């Protein structure tokens, strides 16, 4: 047993619990949130509906490798002679799906464990924190590499790995945000009523850490996208010929000067997606901080 530094620091300056009702709405008033949301929505739309607008089969061989744009191939061809535009339109789905699923899994699990730790305190809390410490000792990419080295690059494995690297960070953030909430008396009131631990966690505490959760989710999502893209870049993608923004960057990264569209379009898409989501997170963070400070 030892003192927990994070907790002590948190206790030292007890941040007023954010009046979370309105954090999200208030964040929408910030220009950065709006820009972020616009970017994110645009890219999500591209990812979801892109395939319906793709002019070609994404794996059809339509030109010479790295053919420069022409009327038939508005963004030119990639390393294999496939249409960059069609592959771009198809390529958002899987990266979005994989990163969203793994983020949901990781953040979901992290929220449950984080709340559990905050509510339990004592040795349970300590044990859970140690557990996250152990997971954190493997940097994200390293953990992913170890798992891939063991089993090979499978989609479900990448999802689980990214979720697993997301989890401990979420645990820490949520636990940190929740420690000041669980000290509040309405939690005691619920306990005195005989509410179950799970209900207290989900109904009483969780809504009060929505601000932190919102920020955390957006950040984790950007890291998930980055991690998946980085794995693809290092050559660990589940199915390299499936159109996917991450693999597109790595497969075509050499054509930066020859046919810049091929690597740049997906790279910019990834960057915009993460920047968009990140800006939304930043907006939420600022709105929450603004409410904390009593300003808007």
């Amino acid at each position, binding site marked *: 047993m030892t003192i927990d530094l994070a907790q002590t620091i948190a206790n030292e300056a007890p941040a007023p619990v954010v009046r979370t009702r309105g954090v999200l709405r208030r964040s929408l008033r910030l220009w950065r949130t709006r820009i972020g949301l616009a970017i994110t929505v645009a890219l999500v739309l591209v990812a979801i509906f892109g395939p319906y607008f793709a002019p070609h089969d994404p794996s059809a061989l339509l030109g010479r490798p790295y053919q420069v744009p022409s009327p038939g191939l508005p963004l030119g061809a990639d390393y294999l002679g496939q249409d960059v535009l069609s592959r771009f339109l198809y390529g958002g789905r899987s990266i979005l799906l994989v990163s969203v699923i793994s983020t949901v899994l990781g953040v979901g699990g992290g929220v449950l464990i984080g709340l559990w730790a905050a509510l339990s305190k004592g040795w349970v809390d300590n044990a859970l924190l140690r557990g996250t410490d152990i997971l954190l000792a493997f940097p994200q990419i390293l953990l992913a590499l170890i798992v891939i080295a063991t089993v090979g690059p499978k989609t479900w494995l990448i999802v689980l790995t990214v979720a697993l690297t997301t989890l401990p960070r979420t645990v820490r953030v949520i636990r940190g945000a929740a420690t000041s909430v669980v000290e509040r008396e309405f939690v005691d009131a619920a306990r005195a009523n005989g509410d179950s631990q799970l209900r207290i966690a989900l109904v009483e505490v969780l809504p009060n850490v929505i601000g932190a959760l919102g920020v955390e989710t957006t950040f984790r999502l950007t890291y998930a996208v980055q991690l998946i893209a980085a794995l693809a870049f290092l*050559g660990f993608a589940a*199915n390299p010929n499936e159109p996917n923004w991450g693999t597109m960057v790595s497969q075509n990264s050499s054509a930066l000067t020859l046919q810049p569209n091929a690597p740049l379009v997906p790279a910019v898409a990834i960057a915009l997606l993460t920047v968009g989501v990140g800006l939304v997170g930043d907006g939420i963070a600022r709105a929450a901080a603004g409410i904390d400070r009593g300003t808007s």
Partner: protein
Amino acid sequence: TGSGPSTTPSGPASGNPAPTSVPGSSGPSGTPKRGGKLSVAVEGNGLKDIMDAQNDLAKIDQARAVTGWEPLLEFDRDFKLSTTGLAESVEADGRLGYVIKLRKGVEFHNGKTLTADDAVYSLQRLTDPKLGLDGGTGLLSADPKNIKKIDTYTVRLGLKRPDVTIPFGLASYTATMVPEGYKNTGKSWQDGQVGTGPFRLTSFSPGQRSEHERFANYRLSGKPYLDNVTILDIDDPNARMNALISGQVQAIADVPYTQTNVITQQPSLVLFNNAGGGWLTLCMRIDQAPFTDVRVRQAFRLIVDRNQMLQNALGGFGRVANDLYAPFDPAYLQVPQREQDLEKAKSLLRAAGHENLTIDLQTSEVAAGLNAMCQVFAQQAKGAGVTVNVKVMDSTTFNNGFQKWTFSPDFWGTRNYLPQVAQGSLKGAPYNETYWPPKGSNFASLYQQALAEQDAGKQTDIIHEMMREEFDTGGYIIPFFDNLVDAYSNKVGGFQKNRGTLNLDYYGRHFADVYLV
């Protein structure tokens, strides 16, 4: 005694597909100049890099071996045997032996003179089955117990069975001569890594680099021109390109096929494109469904649009092939080019009961263009109603499954027909991926006949019969012969085009011909 076919210089096989001419491959002119240091980046194998004069696993190991060591015979620029190596002559001595006369006055880096003792040791080491050296793969018929010194400069190489391809084996770039007692002890390369080549190895770090220093007493006077050569292991082709562009190295092996324009756009760089005899192939295991049915194999060969595959997988840097290998062999079989015929493919598949076939194609980018070739094939197969799932994996997994995959690609270097059959198309051949020949075939006995046949004309007939069988029913889909595409700075001279087996003109013929301008 008649000389073996290999020592008989013969012209290029008449029907060979002509190498595509590629612009931008003219080197700088000028006379060679002494001095300077050359850095060359070659694709390596990371920590798997080895230093053994008679063995190689990756291209970078080749580069190192040829820099410091030489074989008895050599291939000339037309892929014909020449006696410019360490042997003055290699003569057949009956059906079961060759007599090798060593060049006199050849000095090792440590000052010792090359003698028959060294040659006997070298040949015994090469043919030691326990060592499994690459340099020995062309000497499988040799009898290790029957390698004898005749005098100080003469050695007799006895054979277990008649084999006229032995001189080819002796010309392999890894069939080098090492001093007696040579060992690849790994740690103590400083003491033992001694050869007769133009450069002496001075340092070696696996996965990183090796340093080579000019050997002043090299047997060709005036050569080499360079003082030092550094061979860098840069695995990532983009990084190699970047290193060349930013001037960190002066030459690189293997420019990615799709990126040659990057080189040609730079006035200071030279693209060095060599039409070699190497080939990429898709291997169908004829002993496994669905390829047990010859009609499926035939259908798959008809699926391929070879030209499109060449353009899209190799960016055009190669020549369309006809499901046959050994293009530089004088006996190469001339048959009409096989073209894509999806209708015929479909009807063959229907007949074989494999309509709407779905099959996995396991691949890994163990050679440039393999994955692309597989993906192009998958795309083309759609036209015949065949679903090909390309499974890309890391090289280790892929290599671990070598010879286990039902359908997978592979790559081969330049060889003549019979040596190639010995490597990959016989039962018991070390790299037989297609499990050729089929039951009931007389392919193996034809091979034995051809090996023993000293009459070139008769041998050609036998070879044609073998090639015909492979062309009709074989397990290889050979869409093209790939070119070796390298690049160097225009400050470097001395690289010359050849039909060679190795990059950068055999690494500038041991880097002896290369100079800085």
